[in-house]
C-alpha cells in the first residue's frame, strides 16, 4: 500500500482524537481521545516500520523492528498512564462527584 495512505489515515485518527480533546467535557472521554491519538501514532509507526523494511530489505533483514518495538513501549507506557490517570479521575470524582472538566476552575488567572 502507498505509505501516504497510512500517513493520512493516522493523521486523521490523530486529529479526530485531538478534536475530541478539544470539544469534550468529560474527563474520561478526553482521556480516551488521547488513547486514540496514541493508537494513531502506533499505526503510523507500524506502517513506517514496514515501509523501511521494504526499502532496506536487501541490506538488513531485521530493518523495521525498531518501529514495532517502539509501539510496544508506547502500549506499555499507555497502560501505566491509564492506571494513574484513572486513579486521578476517580479521586476527583470522589471529591466533587463529577468528571466534568468545566468544573475544574478553582485555579485560574
Amino acid at each position, binding site marked *: *500500500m*502507498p*505509505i*501516504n*495512505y497510512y500517513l*493520512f*489515515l493516522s*493523521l*486523521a*485518527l490523530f*486529529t*479526530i*482524537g*485531538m*478534536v475530541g480533546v*478539544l*470539544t*469534550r*467535557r*468529560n474527563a*474520561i*472521554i478526553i*482521556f*480516551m*481521545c488521547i*488513547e*486514540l491519538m496514541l*493508537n494513531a501514532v*502506533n*499505526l503510523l509507526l507500524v*506502517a513506517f*516500520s*514496514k*515501509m523501511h*523494511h*521494504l526499502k532496506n*530489505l536487501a541490506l538488513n533483514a*531485521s*530493518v523495521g*523492528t525498531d518501529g*514495532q*518495538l517502539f*509501539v*510496544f*513501549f508506547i*502500549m*506499555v*507506557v*499507555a*497502560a*501505566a498512564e*491509564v*492506571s*494513574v490517570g*484513572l*486513579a*486521578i479521575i*476517580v479521586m476527583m470524582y470522589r*471529591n466533587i462527584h463529577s*468528571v466534568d472538566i468545566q468544573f475544574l476552575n478553582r485555579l485560574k488567572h
Partner: protein
Amino acid sequence: MNVTPYIFWFLSVWALFSALMMVTSRNPVYSVLWLISTFFAISGHYILLNAQFLAVVNIIVYAGAIMVLFLFVIMLMNLNKETEPQKNRWLKLVGALAGGCLLLVLVAALKDAELKSQQAMVGAGSIGLIKVLGKELFTRYVVPFEISSLLFLSAMVGAAVIGKKEITHQNS
C-alpha cells in the same frame, strides 16, 4: 486481483467511522464501545501489515484490559447516561475547526513529501512476528525494557498513593 486495497479501505473507513462516533457519542459507554471498535480496526491494519504481535497485544492490552478498565470506571461512576451538558457551541466549533486546520496543515505539508513513491510492505515480512520481536526485545532493547519496569513501579506506587483512602477524616 489483489484484495489488499479493499481490506485496507474497509478497515480505514471502519476505523475512522468508529473514531468519529467515539468522539461524538453523548453516552460515555457508547464512546468506550466505539473506541474498542476502532481498536479492532487498527488491529486489523496490523494484521494487514503482518504485525501479528502488535495486533495481538493491541487486542489484549488495549481493547481487552485498558478499555475494560475505562468501562469499569464509567460504570462505577454511574456515568452511563447522556449526562454531559452541551459545551459552549462556539468553543466546540472552534475546537473542531482548529483540529481540522491542523489536519489540513499536516496533510498539505506532508503530502508532497519524499514518501510519495514509498510503499508499506503489506501482507508479508517477518519482522512483525513474535519470534523476531522477542529476540530484539531481550537483546538490544533489554535496557529500555527493564527501565519500563521502573515506570510501572512508579505507576503502581502512584496508583496506591492516589487510590488509598486517606486515614484522616475527609473533607473538601
